[in-house]
């Protein structure tokens, strides 16, 4: 394929991470522009010299409450998303991999558990760590870890009530959502399969005697060892066996007339494509194609991502206009644009924007696009910009934000058009529509005309208003 244009490089960096055009050159965008696509994609996929993820000190503080510990994790995760980069990572001062953080966000919405019910910051971190450390590897390994690995599965077992699941009283919650939301998708199984799965999961509980850590424990005496018929296969199913069958099972499921591995690979591949490129229905030919390649590659997630990032459809206008930034992506983009750290622009109202990390709304996780577009959620995006950019940024500690010298490199004075172009470029927007540009230039011209000073100084507050305009423009909302 041809070398990457600046537009395509920016698109790849935004979707595989959180954007690459920020910071002084050489940055990821300058490094990627003109690179062969396959080379660029290999760089994105490379985990070399990635920072480890020891949790922050506040998380480990025994005097902190659970909510505070999770809030500390939230800020720490934002810093990883804010500072991660593809190029320029060194062994001495490693940075996070943007793709790894992006896929951690994806898996958090896929295998969704909420602190609201789990009520245990340690469990939430352990699950989060599993998303990061296993999220680019084998899908079956990840699914097994999230449901059955000590210090990874506790959050899900608690969230989906497998803690009290015993053979005398099977509990259907995990069994159902495992099939409906984590692997095959709804309508590909029957209530009898849910019941059989519930029995398979009996005995996978939390250790009763471990009142401090509440770690996973398998109780053989609570497990129903009897035969169960799951998706047409009669066996002495247990929990991990069910996960393996859903991920890689090849016996045709009578409900779907296809093997569970086919159903699951299509369901998950469609979801990943929709998360990274643009939403597609299950009937889109891309789904079967991506899934078939993914199965050939043994459900290795990195292989699927390579397939996604090298498809022509990924660089189509449909893709470039196909996704709105989620609230987390929106906040990270503002942080990266401004150079503000998370504690200089704390997003207190992520929940009101519609996406509080570690608190997904339900087991189905977050949705996309229109899900973010209620007036209440959009209002809180605007409030975030107003509170953290438009007002008060100059009261914050260094780095001082958007002083015109720091921001645009010292040409003074500028015309309004020059200032607007500079502002969009600095904030990572590579394509500005004529309509938006005209509107913002007209606004700045009017501001200038109304100014008391005939020379119209580029004072900080004008820059802050200009940045507010950029952050609330339609262009900046696109992922």
């Amino acid at each position, binding site marked *: 394929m041809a070398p990457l244009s600046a537009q395509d490089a920016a698109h790849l960096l935004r979707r595989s991470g959180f954007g690459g055009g920020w910071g002084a050159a050489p940055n990821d965008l300058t490094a990627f522009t003109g690179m062969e696509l396959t080379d660029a994609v290999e760089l994105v996929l490379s985990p070399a010299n990635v920072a480890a993820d020891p949790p922050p000190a506040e998380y480990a503080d025994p005097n902190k409450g659970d909510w505070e510990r999770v809030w500390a994790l939230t800020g720490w995760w934002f810093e990883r998303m804010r500072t991660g980069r593809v190029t320029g990572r060194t062994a001495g001062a490693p940075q996070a991999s943007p793709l790894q953080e992006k896929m951690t966000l994806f898996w958090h919405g896929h295998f969704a558990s909420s602190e609201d019910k789990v009520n245990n910051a340690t469990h939430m971190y352990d699950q989060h760590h599993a998303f990061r450390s296993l999220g680019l590897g084998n899908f079956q390994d990840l699914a097994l870890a999230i449901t059955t690995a000590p210090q990874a599965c506790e959050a899900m077992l608690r969230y989906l009530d497998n803690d009290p699941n015993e053979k005398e009283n099977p509990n259907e*919650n995990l069994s*159902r959502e495992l099939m409906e939301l984590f692997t095959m998708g709804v309508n590909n199984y029957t209530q009898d399969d849910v019941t059989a799965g519930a029995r398979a999961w009996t005995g996978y509980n939390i250790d009763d005697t471990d009142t401090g850590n509440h770690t996973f424990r398998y109780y053989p005496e609570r497990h129903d060892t009897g035969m169960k018929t799951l998706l047409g296969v009669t066996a002495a199913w247990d929990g991990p066996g069910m996960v393996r069958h859903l991920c890689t099972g090849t016996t045709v499921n009578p409900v779907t007339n296809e093997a569970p591995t086919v159903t699951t690979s299509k369901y998950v591949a469609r979801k990943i494509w929709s998360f990274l490129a643009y939403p597609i229905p299950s009937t889109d030919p891309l789904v079967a194609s991506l899934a078939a390649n993914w199965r050939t590659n043994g459900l290795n997630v990195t292989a699927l991502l390579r397939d996604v990032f090298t498809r022509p459809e990924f660089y189509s206008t449909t893709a470039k206009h196909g996704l709105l930034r989620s609230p987390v992506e929106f906040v990270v983009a503002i942080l990266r644009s401004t150079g503000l750290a998370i504690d200089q622009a704390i997003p207190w109202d992520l929940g009101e924007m519609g996406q509080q990390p570690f608190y997904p709304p339900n087991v189905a996780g977050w949705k996309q696009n229109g899900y973010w577009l209620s*007036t209440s959620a959009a209002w809180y995006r605007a409030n975030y*910009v107003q509170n953290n950019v438009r007002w008060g940024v100059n009261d914050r500690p260094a780095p001082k934000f958007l002083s015109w010298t720091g921001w645009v490199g010292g040409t003074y004075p500028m015309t309004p058009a020059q200032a607007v172009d500079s502002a969009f470029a600095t904030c990572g927007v590579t394509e500005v*529509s004529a309509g938006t540009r005209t509107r913002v230039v007209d606004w700045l011209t*009017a501001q200038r005309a109304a100014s008391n000073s005939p020379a119209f100084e580029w004072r900080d507050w004008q820059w802050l208003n200009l940045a507010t305009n950029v952050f609330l423009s339609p262009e900046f909302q696109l992922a």
Partner: protein
Amino acid sequence: MTEAEAALRNLSIPAGGPNGMSRRTFLQALGLGAGAMGAGAAIGSNVLERLEAFGVSSTTANDGILVLVMLDGGNDGLNTVIPYADANYRTLRPSIRYDAPGTGANAALDIGVAGFGLHPSLVQLRQRYAQGQVAIVNGVGYQPPDMSHFSWMGYWMNGWSTAPPNSYANGWVGRYLDTLAGAASDELLGVCVGQTVPLHMVGSVARAAGLPTSLSDAFGMDRSTTSDVRLFDTIAGYSTASTGLDQWGDSYARTMKGVLDLATRVKPAYAQPNDSNDDIVRQLTLVARLINAGLGTRVFHTHLGGFDTHADQRPQHADLMGAFDRGIAAFYATLQAQFQNNVTILTFSEFGRRPEENQAGTDHGTASVNFVIGTNVKGGMHGTPPGLAPAKLDRNRNLVSTVDFRTVYATMLRDWLQVDPLPILGGQYPSMDLIARAPNVDPPGTSVPPPRGATVHRARRTRVKTP
């Protein structure tokens, strides 16, 4: 049904829905057609300004207002309206059942109906029931059941008679709002309290506003300086022409225009603090304040989550019932007297729970109960409680519903909101006898409510044909 459809069904504005509709569709829906489109942005701008004039921002005195309370996760109907005398109930629920009124800590509340009582947390609701202001609809559900939260909530939200015609592109309240004047331009005809606009609040042209429970120093509210107004108007102005960014760029632009329009309209409802510990109390307090402010909203959506009580049900469900009870009480404590006879509250949940407990919790079930609350409802027990005898249960040992949920919707539409339910639900459903009096008709034996506040401007709404 595809996963894509499944993903769209719940708590999300669907692709192609009103926020996502193309400008062409938007204008065509208004009967303005492609001719108006061809003239480009300038005409489009005028069209939008004209639409603003349609937005009659008040209800008339005789308009009914419907407040929905969504009990998310599957509310256990059997432990909400409790058949305490049923031997099967007692056998199926050894550890989470409630007993006859007056028999101790786990006793149901007496409502004067033989064999049935209310959950003990519903203390204030029971008083309201005794005043004839609570209708209980038993046995409400949908056939055939499939027990997925997301499928069933999708059915409830969509509310169409058959398999949805448009892949769940809209919902029953949205299709009702479509019939009102100003449907395309007045976002406050429907209000969702919370971060998302659920499917049932989305119509073909109508789009409900989302409002948070509190706002202070919110973007766009202070228009005292020309510099601020210039900024707000610039951002609102993105909606006057295509953004060139396709569906989601245009949808965002319209949403931000909505925010900036709302900023000037909803301010009175946020003047006082709203800081209860119970989110549902804050939500219903805001709803009452929005009604008091006379903004013309016909349907409100509120949301209480956490009903998916697979385990440890008794304390969790008791907390939720208590929060619900406090929410209803706070609503009526806040609602001004002159609006009391204009409001009906309807609860709904995607399904009930399994009659047989799984030790201390319950798995997904089928039929449940709805509450219909208001001064003008016909209080008492309605519908038919499904039997709990083994032969009465379905093959999954779940309840067999006796009332189709769309019958309840049809009743609300026909008898309370006073529209023909047929085009909204796509099928004929009879009314249940849930509404005693039309909106704003005083209950017999009560004094005439005080006159409405003189500061609230009221204009008679003109109905337009459904596009």
